[in-house]
Structure formats: C-alpha cells, structure tokens
C-alpha cells in the first residue's frame, strides 16, 4: 500500500548516490548488494560505486555463475545466497552470559546481551525476501514470546525494496504468490529502468527520505515500462509448486518411495536450510571463556538435516536422510500453513541453486504430491 503522502517520482541513475547520502545523513548505515567471492552478498555499502553495476548471473540446480553483462543496471540479477535473514536472525549470536563468582556454584549472575543495533537501511530487498521477513516477523515477534534480539535489529531497519526484473531459472516466486513485485514491509520501493529508478514511499520514514531527494516527475511511459518489466519477470519463470497449500497431499504421501530416492542423492549438508530465507531452526550452546570468569550462552543456526536436531534420550527421531528431507519438505510446504497461515516457501529458488547435488524442491514436490508411487 502506498503511503498517502507518497509521490511516484523518477530518480536518475546519476543521482542514486544522493539517496545513499541522505540515508547516511539521517543516521542510517547503508547495507546493499555487492560482489564478494563471485556471488552477490549484502554488506555495508559506503557508496553507489560498490553496487554490482553491469552484473548479471545464471543459476540452475547446483550452479551459480556471475558475469559482466554489459549494461548499466545495479539490480539486474536475481538473489545470491543470502539477503535479509542474516541481518536480523544472525548465524550466531550471544544471548546472555553468566558468571559464577565463587567456588562450588555458590553464586550465579546472569546478564542479557541485547545487541546495540545501529539503524540499518537495506537497499535492494527483493519480494521473496520481504515475504520471508513477514514470516520471521510473525515467528519471532508475534507468536507468543517476543524475541528481544530479533526485535533490537528489526525495529531500527529501513527497507528499500527493488522489484525484480531478472528472475533466475531457479526462481518461482510468481507461483508462490510472493513476487516479483514486493508487497510487504518496505519503506521505499524502486523500479529500475535503464537510466534510473521509479521511486515511491510506503511509510512515513520513507516519505521523509524521499522528500529530501532531487527528483523528477515520473512519466506515464516510464511507469508503463517499469510495470511491463515486472510482469515479464513473472512470465519468464518456468518452475512452480503444484499448489500453494500442499499440506494434505504431503500427509497423504508420507510413505512415497520418492523420499528414499531423494535421500540417495541428498548429502544432508544442510545448505538448503542455511540459504532458505524462512528456515528459523537454531540451537543453543554455552561456552565458558578461557579465563573461567564467565560463560556465554549463544544461539546459532541449526538444520533439520543434522542428526542431532532430533536427538532425545539416546535416540534420534530422524535417523535417515529420507526422514530428514521429509521433515524439511512437509514442514516447509505443509505444516507451515497451520503455523503461519501460509507456506514456508517464498519461491526464491536458493535451495535449488545452492544444493551441491541439485535437488529441486519444485520437482520433488511434484513427484511426491502426485501420489503416483511408480517413479
């Protein structure tokens, strides 16, 4: 929903750096996409020059290749392995520490370690990642207990979305209903054209930034061009899930032979869960510091593909790769609906690209949900 004070305007590419400067002046540390180790990652962004201008990429099951594409665009690529998730739900973080002042456990003090979070402005958030953000907002902030660590990061975050115009072959956000047009949680929205951006605000914070920029009126032809590009991005996607809610077909096929077939390929490496923007599993651990003065309690990302994930009283509930893959998919595409009122898959395609053996959630779900036992 566009903010009532928002105007739809045009930001010439040559003035993009001003957006970054205004954000910095407003107290934000900018985070944006950059090329790092042959992939696009989100990191602190000091200047527009560091954006991945002219870059595009190719993705297919188990493959990701970045290349110079000979254009001037900043955002002419589909997502790399990570975007918003690690900024809010960090791979590892200290939750609290305890100190044991005397011998024999005679006194124990606890101190919470809530992060001091600088306000971040994330430039370039995509529709799929914003849909995943919606899920994590619910999971960490609205379902019962509020998570103070997630909240500390989230409340200071400004989001600048970019509608996708270059889906990868692995993308299927159109089929899950989550993209390529951003719909949730952003303050400012950009549509990239050859010579600049259509910009609009969706929050008071967004309006405050937009009004400071030196913008031109957006012409009808530019709006049409922007709209066409997003529609074509949706039309170009070839992958898809059989339906948005697969709870019942998955439950009906818990013993489908295809689980075992996938298990024979799956390495249980957990890459899929690490790159998935909606996976939230984590474990907790306590690490005493070397000088013995205190012990720090951490949480870190975990994966349902680990043996230990389901360990209890000397037994592992999911002791085979087939059971673990089934847990992952029946949760993501099935029980997620009961938990969050929507699927846990936002169609970003990352689990397909970053799976070393190219296991493809859309293909596997199709086979399993078809119920056809002779695969």
């Amino acid at each position, binding site marked *: 929903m566009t903010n009532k004070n928002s105007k739809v305007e045009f930001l010439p590419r040559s003035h993009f750096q001003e957006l970054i400067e205004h954000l910095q002046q407003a107290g934000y540390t900018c985070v944006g996409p950059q090329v790092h180790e042959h992939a696009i990652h989100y990191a602190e962004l000091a200047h527009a020059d560091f954006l991945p201008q002219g870059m595009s990429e190719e993705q297919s099951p188990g493959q990701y290749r970045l290349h110079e594409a000979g254009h001037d665009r900043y955002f002419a690529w589909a997502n790399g392995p990570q975007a918003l998730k690690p900024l809010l739900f960090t791979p590892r973080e200290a939750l609290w520490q305890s100190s044991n002042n005397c011998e024999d456990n005679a006194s124990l003090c606890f101190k919470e370690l809530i992060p001091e979070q600088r306000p971040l402005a994330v430039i370039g958030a995509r529709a799929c990642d914003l849909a995943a953000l919606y899920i994590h907002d619910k999971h960490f902030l609205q379902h019962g207990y509020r998570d103070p660590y997630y909240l500390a990061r989230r409340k200071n975050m400004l989001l600048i979305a970019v509608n996708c115009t270059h889906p990868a072959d692995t993308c299927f956000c159109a089929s899950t209903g989550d993209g390529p047009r951003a719909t949730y949680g952003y303050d400012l929205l950009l549509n990239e054209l050859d010579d600049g951006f259509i910009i609009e605000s969706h929050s008071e914070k967004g309006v405050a930034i937009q009004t400071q920029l030196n913008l031109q009126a957006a012409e009808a032809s530019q709006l049409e061009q922007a709209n066409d590009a997003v529609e074509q991005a949706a039309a170009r996607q070839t992958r898809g899930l059989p339906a948005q809610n697969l709870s019942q077909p998955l439950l009906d096929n818990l013993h489908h032979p295809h689980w075992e077939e996938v298990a024979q390929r799956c390495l249980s490496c957990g890459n899929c869960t690490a790159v998935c923007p909606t996976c939230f*599993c984590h474990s907790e651990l306590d690490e005493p510091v070397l000088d013995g003065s205190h012990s720090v309690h951490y949480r870190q990302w975990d994966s349902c593909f680990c043996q230990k994930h389901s360990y209890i009283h000397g037994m592992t509930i999911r002791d085979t790769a087939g059971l673990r893959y089934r847990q992952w998919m029946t949760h993501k595409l099935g029980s*997620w609906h009961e938990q969050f009122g929507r699927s846990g898959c936002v169609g970003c395609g990352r689990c397909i690209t970053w799976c070393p053996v190219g296991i493809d959630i859309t293909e596997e779900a199709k086979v399993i949900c078809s119920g056809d036992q002779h695969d």
Partner: protein
Amino acid sequence: MTNPYLPYEATIIERIQESPNLFTLRLCFTDPKLQSDYCFEPGQFNMLYLYGVGEIPISIVSDPKDEHIIDHTIRAVGRVTNAMSNLKPGARIGIRGPYGRGWPILEAEQRDVVVVTGGLGCAPVVSVINYMSHRRERFGKLNIVQGVKHSNDFIWRDRYDHWRELPDTKVLLAADDGEPIWPWHVGRVTDLFDQLEFNKDHVIVMLCGPEGMMRVVIKHMLEQGVAAKDIWLSMERNMQCAVGHCGHCQFGAKFICKDGPVFCYEDVKSLLGQRGF
C-alpha cells in the same frame, strides 16, 4: 519487556537420590520476590541451567500451591543432567519458566480420572496426581496405573502407598519383569485395565511415558468408548529454547514446548506413531 531466554538464579535447598540414576532437586529462587510471584500448572516445565554446561527442560513435580519450593525430578542421562547430578545443597543453578501447557485439570474436575504412566519416574504426571490427591473431593474415581520395565525401576513406593489410601482411588502397578518379592502384577499395564473403574462418558485419561506404550493405551481406551477429546498425553522432543523459536521440538505443526507438552490426543493423532516425527 522481559527476556524469555534469560534464566534467574536459584538455590538447591535439598537433593534427594530417588534411584541409582534419578534424583530430585528442591529449588528456590534466590530472589524472594521471584519465588513468591512464581506460579505454574501441573504438567508445565522449566529450563534448568548449569553454569558453563547448558540448559535442559525438566517438568515440575511439586504442588503449585507450595510457595516455597520448586521440585524437579531428573534422570541423569545426558551431558547436562549428569553434571547436574553432582550438585550439592547450597549450589546455584539457573531457572527460566514455566513453559508450555499443563494437564486439563479444570476439565477433569468432577470427572473420573485415569492416569497411566510407563517408564522411569514419569515426573509429568506425578505433579498432577499430587495435585488431585490434595484436592481429592473435586474429582471422581481416581485410577493410577504405573508400568515399569523391571520392578527395581519402581520409585516413590511411599507415594503410591499414600495414594492407595485415598478415598475412591485405585493404584495398579505392573512390571514387565519382577523380582520374586514384587507384590504386584508381572506383565503389561494393559493387562490391568479390566480392573479400572471409570465412567467412559465422564472421564479424563492422562498419559505419560514411551509413545509406543501410550499408543497401546489410547487404542484400548478408544475401544472402551472413551472419546479422543478426553484423552491427554505429555510428549517429549529435543528442546533448546522452550519458547517456540528454535524449531527443535516440532511435531508436525505443533511446537511441543509451547503448544504442549500436554496435548489432547485429538490434536496429535494424525502423526502419533509415524516414524520420523
């Protein structure tokens, strides 16, 4: 806003060795205000923290009306519980909780109650049996059935003897394997079921123990005409956070830590007994 992850200091007031690997810690928050404000329902659990080692979910066995002490009966089976078993009175540990949903004690009022447990100790139901025994007049006929593998595993004889003395209360014990002096049944708990006394239309069944055992009992109860909605069970899975965030305890769409650990059978029946969940 309070931090749901943060433990608070508690003191071990007393330590009781119940059996070779089962012990009870009687705990009290060091801060008197925390102790007096603390309240819980039978069937709920706390996260106990041992300095430098980690946290573990343990159900609460004391009576909710006891303002002075919180009891946890713990089996020394893993890294944290083994280390915890070495603690002495006066030592400090961390507690956060209580978590989850307990037994349906309000629904159970005025009804007959059948409590069936298997395995060692079965702390989650001890609290609810204690609760009912102290408020005996609020409940109908009370049946307590406990099965153990070997008669040596049977603890809390005095409690069972005490419960046996309560009005309108049946206590039935079975050991798969009994020593010659074991005075009770040798065999399965289900062998004892024809001795139960309850009105199938006016009963609450509470189960705790290995899932295989609970499924056998559920099947029997359903065959007797007890409604699925009147059967409740306490479940266990790996737990790290206890607040529905870490994902470890999921059972289908349910988070055992916050939607359970006590569930109505109706809510979990679709996956109960499915390997891998």
